[in-house]
């Protein structure tokens, strides 16, 4: 289920109107009940899981501040997510039928929000709030399906301060429009149809070039689609009076792979930095292992499969290499004047862009052997 479906758009419009029509003291109820009704109609399994996991999260967070209890909650949420995603890696354990039919809508996002909430509770960083604030956060329709993984502190602040603002409404609607334009025109039409057709013509004459262009096309399409969905989510949230964290910031002009992950799917990479990298690095004192573990979690969050394991290792190795290079960079001669600096910057962007788009082979191809064959084609080693 996506924002492209008309009934989802209509539900979002309804939720946005309802939250302003009801008196302010009922806004939390309006947010939570509209989403519950939406899930009840279209994804009842997800509704049950969201209710159960939210009840467990809030019970653990309210009853105890003990790290052991809260860690058990974090593990439980991680296991819940892993169970439903495992079908991709071990279809014999989790039958394909169950995997396909019962992966609950928005599970990846709401389990990570619950983990974030438990971690913040552990660190005593949650603002003063009531049960309804938490329920409104968990049942917030715009970000339920495709993120971003918004933070509880920001959400609770907006929940208490929100006032109708014409300028914010206009910005929100504009963002929704840009989001749909990105998905439908730039993603579905230009990248997936026009460019794909042009690449197909190159295929016979020069398979290596066609493979490279297809990686570029795939990366651009991913960006248009995913950032478009985020624009729609952020836009509808703004219409409802909430400022949601940005998820993309011109990722293809990143100067290094570290910078890329500060610009691409920012809410997820920030989550992994705070709740995976920092605990692992402080427990093990091995930063490179922590980088690898973080990138594996980030990759497996997308899909439990070997191709995503390979993608995570590829990016983890890339970040580790960048860190090593960065630590020794001062020994290299400087770029010289402004022209030298500009050239070094352009080269950095070019190298990072190519590293990223070549890595998209793992996510573009259906499995690891196909990705291997695509790598060979890219190198001109296979017809």
């Amino acid at each position, binding site marked *: 289920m996506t924002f492209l479906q008309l009934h989802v758009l209509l539900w979002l419009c309804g939720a946005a109107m309802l939250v302003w029509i009801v008196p302010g003291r009922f806004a939390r109820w309006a947010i939570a009940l509209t989403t519950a009704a939406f899930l009840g109609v279209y994804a009842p399994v997800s509704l049950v899981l969201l209710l159960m996991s939210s009840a467990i999260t809030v019970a653990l967070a309210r009853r105890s501040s003990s790290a052991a209890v809260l860690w058990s909650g974090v593990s439980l949420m991680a296991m819940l997510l892993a169970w439903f995603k495992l079908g991709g890696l071990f279809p014999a354990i989790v039958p394909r039928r169950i995997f396909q039919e019962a992966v609950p809508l928005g599970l990846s996002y709401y389990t990570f929000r619950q983990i974030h909430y438990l971690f913040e509770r552990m660190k005593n960083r949650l603002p003063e709030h009531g049960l309804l604030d938490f329920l409104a956060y968990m049942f917030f329709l715009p970000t339920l399906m495709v993120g971003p993984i918004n933070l509880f502190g920001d959400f609770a602040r907006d929940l208490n301060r929100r006032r109708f603002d*014409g300028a914010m409404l*206009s910005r929100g609607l504009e963002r929704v429009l840009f989001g749909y334009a990105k998905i439908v025109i730039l993603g579905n039409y230009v990248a997936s149809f026009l460019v794909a057709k042009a690449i197909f013509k190159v295929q016979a004459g020069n398979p290596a070039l066609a493979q490279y262009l297809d990686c570029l096309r795939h990366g651009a399409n991913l960006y248009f689609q995913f950032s478009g969905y985020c624009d729609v989510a952020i836009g509808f949230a703004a219409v409802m009076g909430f400022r949601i964290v940005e998820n993309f910031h011109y990722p293809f002009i990143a100067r290094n792979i570290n910078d890329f992950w500060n610009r691409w799917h920012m809410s997820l990479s920030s989550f992994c930095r705070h709740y995976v990298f920092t605990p692992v690095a402080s427990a093990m004192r091995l930063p490179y292992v922590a980088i690898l573990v973080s990138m594996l979690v980030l990759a497996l969050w997308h899909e439990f499969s070997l191709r995503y394991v390979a993608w995570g290792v590829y990016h983890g190795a890339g970040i580790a290499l960048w860190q090593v290079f960065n630590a020794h960079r001062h020994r290299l001669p400087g770029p010289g004047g402004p022209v030298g600096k500009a050239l070094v910057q352009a080269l950095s962007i070019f190298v990072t862009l190519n590293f990223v788009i070549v890595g998209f082979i793992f996510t573009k191809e259906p499995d690891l052997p196909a990705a291997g064959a695509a790598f060979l084609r890219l190198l001109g080693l296979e017809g």
Partner: protein
Amino acid sequence: MYAILCRIFPRRVAVVLTAMVWTLLLLLIYALSVGPEGDFRYFRI
């Protein structure tokens, strides 16, 4: 756009006009991309 409309019309009228313009543009994208299932999908010019 809201800021421009606010200079011409009262604030409340500007809000309604802004919402109308963005909604009409969204309907235009929908009209150009509606597929057999009735969803946004197959944008073609």
